[in-house]
């Protein structure tokens, strides 16, 4: 594992998409080796913030990594969902090495590589998925596989977009505990976007309330105060709002 675990320093970050200001002059420090949650209403720019950190959207301002800002970290990204054709024959084990291995998969994988992949899949409880075609994975299984990629590749910063969006309610708790365990083990900087305030309260050490601008960045007890939540989601919202939301999402998908 790398000895440098960088934090992210964001200064005057603005992102404009299709003429609309999605993020407006954001200043934010994301502490290293801990879990930071980003919460906010729909359209608040949460996913856009992750994409800006990844360099996937054009932005103005600066995003610096590490103590002196010059270190370019190895970032892992777990998106909300991926659209993969069902008939795609690429197996999960293949998928896990696509970005890290140069030698083409025509010649198969070596024993040590298979062992490394198996142990990463085992760590996230997805050993049984190793030879499954990725087109046949559910949303939750895909996120688990990407988490295995994080484990296998020792990433320094991990960005998770809605980590429970593809998982049923019973699997949600287990998945979040797993993420927390792995983060504690590997000590990477974890940034997660979540609708679910109960997940945030339970697992995050630092919470960022975002609605185009940073309204608050503090520890969960302070950031999730009723006043802050009302300011972020509107006065009619309670902390339980998010649980209903997750259930609604799940119902909508079925």
């Amino acid at each position, binding site marked *: 594992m790398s000895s440098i675990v960088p934090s992210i320093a964001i200064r005057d970050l603005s992102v404009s998409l299709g003429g609309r200001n999605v993020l407006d002059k954001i200043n934010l420090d994301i502490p290293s080796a801990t879990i930071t949650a980003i919460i906010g209403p729909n359209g608040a720019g949460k996913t856009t913030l992750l994409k800006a950190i990844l360099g996937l959207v054009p932005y103005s301002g600066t995003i610096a990594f590490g103590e002196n800002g010059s270190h370019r970290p190895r970032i892992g990204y777990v*998106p909300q969902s991926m659209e993969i054709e069902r008939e795609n024959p*690429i197996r999960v084990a293949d998928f896990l090495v696509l970005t890290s291995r140069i030698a*083409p*998969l*025509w010649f198969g994988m070596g024993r040590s590589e298979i062992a490394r992949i198996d142990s990463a899949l085992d760590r996230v409880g997805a050993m049984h998925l190793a030879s499954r075609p990725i087109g046949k994975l559910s949303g939750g299984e895909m996120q688990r596989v990407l988490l295995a990629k994080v484990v296998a590749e020792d990433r320094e910063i991990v960005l998770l977009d809605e980590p429970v969006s593809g998982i049923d309610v019973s699997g949600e708790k287990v998945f979040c505990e797993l993420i927390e365990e792995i983060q504690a083990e590997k000590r990477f900087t974890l940034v997660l976007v979540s609708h679910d305030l109960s997940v945030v309260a339970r697992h995050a050490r630092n919470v960022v309330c975002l609605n185009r601008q940073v309204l608050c960045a503090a520890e969960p007890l302070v950031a999730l105060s009723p006043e802050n939540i009302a300011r972020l989601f509107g006065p009619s919202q309670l902390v339980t709002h998010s649980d209903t939301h997750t259930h609604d999402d799940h119902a909508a998908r079925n």
Partner: protein
Amino acid sequence: MDWAASNLNSLYDLVCRGLDALLPFSWISPAFMKTPFLMMLILCPTAAAVGTVAVNARMSFFTEALSHSAFTGVALGIMMGLHPTLIMFAFGCAVALAITFLRRNATVSMDTAVGVMLSLSVALGVVVITATKFRNADRFLFGDVLLTEKSDLGMALLLAVIVFGFLALTYNRLLMIGLDARLARAWGVNTFIYEYLFSLLVAVVVMMSVASAGVLLVTALIIVPAAAGRSLARGAGSMFWCSVAVSLVAGVGGFIASFYLNSATGGTIVLAAGAIFGISVIYRAIRG
């Protein structure tokens, strides 16, 4: 150059003697059948290898647009009084880069970008052909592998080495980009370089295949074996081998069948690949 040519000639003679010894059949015994047969043995797997990545990245329509631009390229070359083949390659590469640029930078989807470039290049071709009274279009539309000359083989071999060499270094990352380009970028893949280089590679393979298979069949040569290989495969590695194997079986089978049926060779090869694709789909449905 002389040294390379004489070496290629002696290699060619050696391979021809090998073919006589290995395949003592009437369809391969005439000297004029050996060159096209060798051409097909080089071209089919090369096209299928590129096709494996192209199909994974949903680039079938992109390949189709490039094959149509070949016709315009040739017409432009004739109109400008320059070497038609050279202009065909240059024009094909320009169209490939333009589509990739549009797709990466404009707010249009891949099929719209391809559709626009396809229409424009065909329209330009029609205008140029009408102006130059270019009447010898059949060879480009339908192609004929039987017209392959010995000198074409050297070029095809060079292209095959480039294609397999490039894919040996980029195959895994190209598959990732094909699955989800943004995810690939997020995980540190330089999609800019890979996407532009691969589009150029497809353009060169398409242009190289035009003389053998014709504008109308090039896409089939690249896409159909890869589609069949994908249905038969159980993983990223076997997807590659299955596609190459299907292209060779279809290539050899179609070549022999066309000799006995007295049918167009390129068309028969593609029909053979199509038959294997049909079988692969049924196999897939049964396997589940």
